């Protein structure tokens, strides 16, 4: 369903992606792991087409995202739902209007039809009672759930989730994870999640990929990933300070 072929990307002098190749099959829940700033969110933005790679190709179904015109890209994006790290709800619109926005702007549905779909999606994420609230009146977890409802409102085939449980307490993080699993099973959507939260990653994933120094160093099912022989993956999974990830930088930290 999604394929990245030898994707390179740099921001000014910093090389973020250095030949990333990744294939995602339909109905998979792929979790991309990596340190903060390793380029996980960049991969999601490249798939969405809001960023263009320096080189390489990105495919979504039969479309080569990197070669699409603005108009075609806008049409393709209607099949993709994205949940941003900080939810990115429109602050001037209430919950109902945030979720209704894609339907109002991109479909010919009547007001009553839109209301029905919005109610249904908000009920799905357990936010049916908060329709009139503004984003500033919501907690972090509630915002994430509204963002998820907004991402699902056009029944996308692909769901991109950027740190869905970051900054949430463990209970709410589990609720969000369970929600993602049940939604992807019920609605049969393919999902790609970028995270560095290991508990959340193992709960959600049907397959995992580790991004390190601009490349995918390991791809495996969660069980295999947990027992990986790769020292970088093993250190990342265990959260240990001993290992190749902090080599050099740990010395600098301890000397301070």
């Amino acid at each position: 369903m999604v394929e990245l072929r030898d994707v390179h990307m740099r921001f000014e002098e910093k090389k973020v992606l250095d030949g990333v190749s990744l294939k995602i099959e339909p109905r998979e829940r792929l979790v991309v792991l990596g340190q903060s700033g390793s380029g996980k969110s960049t991969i999601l933005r490249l798939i969405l087409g809001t960023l263009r790679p320096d080189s390489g190709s990105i495919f979504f179904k039969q479309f080569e995202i990197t070669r699409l015109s603005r108009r075609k890209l806008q049409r393709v994006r209607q099949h993709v739902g994205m949940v941003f790290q900080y939810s990115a709800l429109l602050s001037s619109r209430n919950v109902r209007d945030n979720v209704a926005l894609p339907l109002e702007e991109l479909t010919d549905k009547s007001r009553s039809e839109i209301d029905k779909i919005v109610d249904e999606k908000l009920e799905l994420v357990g936010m049916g009672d908060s329709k009139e609230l503004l984003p500033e009146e919501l907690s972090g977890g509630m915002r994430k759930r509204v963002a998820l409802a907004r991402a699902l409102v056009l029944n996308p085939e692909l769901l991109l989730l950027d740190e869905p449980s970051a900054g949430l307490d463990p209970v709410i993080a589990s609720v969000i994870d369970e929600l993602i699993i049940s939604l992807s099973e019920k609605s049969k959507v393919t999902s790609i999640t970028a995270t560095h939260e290991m508990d959340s990653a193992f709960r959600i994933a049907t397959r995992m990929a580790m991004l390190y120094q601009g490349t995918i160093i390991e791809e495996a099912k969660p069980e295999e990933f947990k027992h990986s022989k790769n020292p970088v993956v093993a250190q990342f999974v265990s959260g240990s300070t001993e290992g190749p990830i902090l080599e050099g930088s740990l010395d600098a930290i301890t000397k301070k």
Partner: protein
Amino acid sequence: MPHAELPPVVIAEGVGYATRYFLREVGSVFWLIVNTFEETFERIQHGRVPFRAASFFRHTERAGVDSVPLVGLVSFFLGLTMALLTGYQLQRFGTERLIPGLVAIAFTRELGPLLTGIMLAARIGAAFTAELGTMQVSEEVEAIEAMGIGPLRFLVAPRMLALVLLMPCLSTVSNIAAIFASSLVCKAYFSIAFPYFLDLVKDSLLIRDIITGVLKSLLFGLLIAAIACYRGLTVKGGAAGVGTSTTSSVVTAITAVIGFDTLYNVVYTTFYPT
């Protein structure tokens, strides 16, 4: 310690860098206008409204109705001052009956659109930049784009249209306020009765002056909206970036309005010298 003289190559490099930056900014604003039109007309071609009427009217209310007191008051005071100062000079030659025409032509052709442009650049341009800049740093603009909604059509087009349509109306308010103020001065200090004042205004004002004023206002409205939205959508660096961009937006928009006014006058007087 005396400053060492800069070598010519360094000066040339600086000039080249500044020119490139200027041209890149002008090009970006130009393409923002073109792409906004393109996105909007594509939507109309598909038989759909480009943006919600409520969004358009919210901006017209803020840019137009809420700006009337400021534009009216400033223009009233300026009209008053202009009539007084020119009146005393003209009185020495016995030509104070020229005051109504002078104020009417000056405001209709030049000062009305210019003052309104400067006031709107400061008042509304800053608001547009701050609003879009905040949306940009909180990823709201990217979220709109991610949904497959054209951000230029959705965010820029209603603001641009509101300002373009409202500028001539506010210029008219400015002209009327200034002419009314000068009529009060004429009556109080130079014994020109109101009906005679109106006759003198009508005699001196040409349709061409009114058209010039309206065209300038439309152009200024487009410029202010485009610069303000461009600055807002290109904000980088969080809250501090929003502040910097807002200041830059106001300065750029005011400079652009005055610059285009001068350019317009040069072109106009070349083709219509009288």
